[in-house]
């Protein structure tokens, strides 16, 4: 984040400072509550003065989020949070800007703005509440709904393959890409914090249960019996170990993934290790392609974390450059530029 945002005096903010006087209007049991709670926990740890936070959202259940934060908040229109936020951050790079969005908001109507935000690498933290359904409009399928899903608008099952948001973010150039889940608050908080601390477009997909219209969509990642085999926690520098008893390891043989046993006795010799900072497109895309694939566990954590110039920094630098070249803007000089003549 911009230097000016780092206050050397320790700020003594707590989560209560971020709690607005608006009572959340989500359904009881909705996964959104968990994300809200962790966000409030994480913000005080960033060392940024409260007034610098701006939460921008689109439309959807998830997009009500800004009302529940006692920060500057802009609840906008469906799909367009990314562009509003881009304008806010470009106009005032000193603000810490979040985009809160849903799978429909970000990937259906807002798909174009999403990929262009990632491409520009504007320093914005984008949190996608992916419940694989349209919540607010009462249960139509979304671009992340599994193929064949029966919903209000697909009573006979959908025909479209879903998007993989993590892969879309990577293909379009986001410099930080992560995934987490509402029901693992520690991991969620960690991801939110790392994303918020990243400078550049940071994209976090949060698997979020909509207990009204898509209950249990992510149960295999949260239920005790299935969790172990389905969740792959990626840790930087570590092999891809998973399993209820941490007894399996995912390995890449140069051509495809293999799962092998991982026990004290039997450890693979040179297991692939996770390195989100390598810029190795192959590995990033490979890992991301394990989504929706039931043979393999689904990766959680950071897929990519790269240091790259942000759009707004480049813009500010360009402005400085032009000022040096042409001198700071002088209005009279500008108005009189070009061929002019005097009438006396």
């Amino acid at each position, binding site marked *: 984040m911009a230097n000016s945002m780092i206050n050397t005096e320790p700020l003594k903010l707590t989560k209560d400072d971020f709690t*607005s006087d*608006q009572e959340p209007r989500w359904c009881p049991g909705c996964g959104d509550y968990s994300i809200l709670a962790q966000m409030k926990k994480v913000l005080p740890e960033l060392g940024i*003065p*409260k*007034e*610098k936070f*701006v939460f*921008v959202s689109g*439309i959807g259940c998830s997009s009500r989020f*800004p*009302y529940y934060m*006692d*920060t*500057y*908040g*802009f*609840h*906008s*229109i469906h799909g*367009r949070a990314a*562009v*509003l*936020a*881009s*304008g*806010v*951050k*470009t*106009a*005032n790079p*000193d*603000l810490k800007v979040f985009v809160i969005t849903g799978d429909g908001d970000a990937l259906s109507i807002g798909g*174009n*703005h999403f990929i*262009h935000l990632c491409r520009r690498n504007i320093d914005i933290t984008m949190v996608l509440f992916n419940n694989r359904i349209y919540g607010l409009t009462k249960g139509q399928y979304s671009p992340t709904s599994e193929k064949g899903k029966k919903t209000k608008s697909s009573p006979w099952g959908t025909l479209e393959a879903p998007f993989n948001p993590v892969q879309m973010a990577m293909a379009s150039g986001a410099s930080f890409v992560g995934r987490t889940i509402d029901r693992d608050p520690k991991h969620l908080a960690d991801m939110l914090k790392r994303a918020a601390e990243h400078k550049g477009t940071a994209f976090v997909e949060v698997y979020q249960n909509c207990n009204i219209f898509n209950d249990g969509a992510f149960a295999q990642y949260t239920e005790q019996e299935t969790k172990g085999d389905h969740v792959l926690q990626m840790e930087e520098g570590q092999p891809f170990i998973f399993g209820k008893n941490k007894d399996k390891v995912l390995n890449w043989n140069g051509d495809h993934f293999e799962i092998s046993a991982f026990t004290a006795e039997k450890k693979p010799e040179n297991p692939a290790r996770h390195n989100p900072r390598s810029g190795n497109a192959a590995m990033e895309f490979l890992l991301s392609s394990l989504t929706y694939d039931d043979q393999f566990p689904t990766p959680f954590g950071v897929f990519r974390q790269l240091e790259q110039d942000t759009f707004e920094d480049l*813009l500010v630098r*360009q*402005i400085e*450059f*032009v*000022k040096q*070249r*042409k*001198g*700071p*803007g002088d*209005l*009279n000089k*500008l*108005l*009189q530029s*070009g*061929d*002019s*003549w*005097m*009438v*006396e």
Partner: protein
Amino acid sequence: MAKKETQKLERVTIRFAGDSGDGMQLTGGQFTNTTALAGSDLITLPDYPAEIRAPAGTLFGVSGFQIQFSSQPVHTPGDMPDVLVAMNPAALKVNLAALRHNGIIIINSDAFQVKNLKLAAYEENPLENDSLKGYQVFPVQITELTREALKDSSLSMKEKDRCKNFFALGMTYWMFSHSMETTESWIKDKFASKPDLIDANLKALNAGYSYALSTEIFTTSYEVAKAYKEPGMYRNITGNEAIALGLIAAAHKSGKELFLGSYPITPASDILHELSKHRNHNVKTFQAEDEIAGIGTALGAAYAGSLAVTTTSGPGMALKTEFMGLAVMTELPLVIVNIQRGGPSTGLPTKTEQADLLQAVYGRNGEAPIPVIAAASPADCFMATFEACEIAFRVNSPVILLSDGYIANGAEPWKIPTAESLPEIKVEYATNPENYEPYKRDPQTLSRLHVLPGTPGFEHHVGGLEKDDSGNVSYVPDNHDRMIRLREAKIQKLADVLPQPEIFGAKEGDLLIISWGSTYGTIYTALDEILNRKTNKKIGWIHLRWINPLPKNLADYVSKFKKVLVPEINLGQLIKIIRSEYLVDAKGFNKVRGLPLSTSDLINAIDEELKG
């Protein structure tokens, strides 16, 4: 050297026409600058095809540039050119009909070979039959003469041939007693790094001049005296340049950074181009992925405290309407510029039209009032823009500025204001965090009090759902009714402070003309001519600057005339508002031909009204 005479003229219209590749826009631009520096008043009308470089010689590839200049005030580029410079048969074919009777045609006769004649769908060479009778025709071997002049140049034949527009320009400079100085220094500047080209273009220009001077076929040159202009510094300016400058000026005078969110579209792109040059004025241009992102980023910037602007044309305007609703609902200052073009849909993208007025006034879901201002001429775009910015900040509202293809690309002399002479633009934010309510209003302006994010103690929410004063979402029926009426009243109340348009001509009487936007010049010229005839009819004219809200004095004027005529380049849009508002049986004069209204057509229409 043949003896030649010089004739004084009050007013001349000349049109340059050739292939898109012939450099006609450049030629016209140079002629314009020289004419302006010579002290004439003038207006220009470029007219180029939608294709970038249509195949050489084709009818649809013809590019034209027209300029009217005079020792008297000029308000249109002229209905009928007095002089046509035609670089090939297609250019002649396309433009001949417009030429006035007995007009002058300078023709590049070298271009009239079989292939070009065929492309222009001429069955016979018009230079060889009497189809050009009734005109003064000057066929000149421009290509050959240019090659001859450049025979020592090291340029390739193709490059040499590209200089022939300067040869033609040179001829016209002689013909209108213009100095070559401005163009000469422009050439030196432009091709600074390519001495070959400097040399060749200067030679071609001079050769054209000398040729006209020495050849027998040109017997007369003309002189147009200086026009009276208020003393001051002047420059030529197109509408789009004036908008760009108006925005930068408003940014300076409001102490704001300028943010432009825009997606390229003809004929609005030049504003983006111009602004993107001026980073040293703290101009942040953001080329967005589409028009929605253009207005969306601008609205974000408005929220964050910039002077925020989005620029576009018709189809792009259509895409922005959802966001305009959000701008109305969040009550943030935002200037939306629509350079209208021929519609509907893609329509005639490089042509002019005034058919987006009702869209500007009504084209949103729900009751979403937005002030609408229209510029009247290229130079007027500067102050219209400045005013739009002022009002956006004054009432924290989006403001729509309408221009159109004609004044956007057309140019006229503009008296350059000094920075100091421009008014400061006041921008106010709430300052008391105690009980700050984002939708509490200034009782005077009814504007809500905005606070910039980053200001400690004012954290609050805005958004597209209906809110109560505190900024909390409210579904209370009476709150919604109240808020809808407040938003409307805020805009209507502006009529109290906006300058009232003046009435030209009679203040009561037979016919009141009401108009808006780029028809200003045509109407001015038509009325000038009619009033010069010393008619006994009493004619008044009000040209609207703000269309929403309507000016307060209009009702009164309307009631004082027997008839009302509303000329527009659409099927009748302002007239709908006028009729509804004042219940007057106004008549429209409407031509939707992708062109400015023709003065003579308008004169006829006015005469018709006066008769009936």
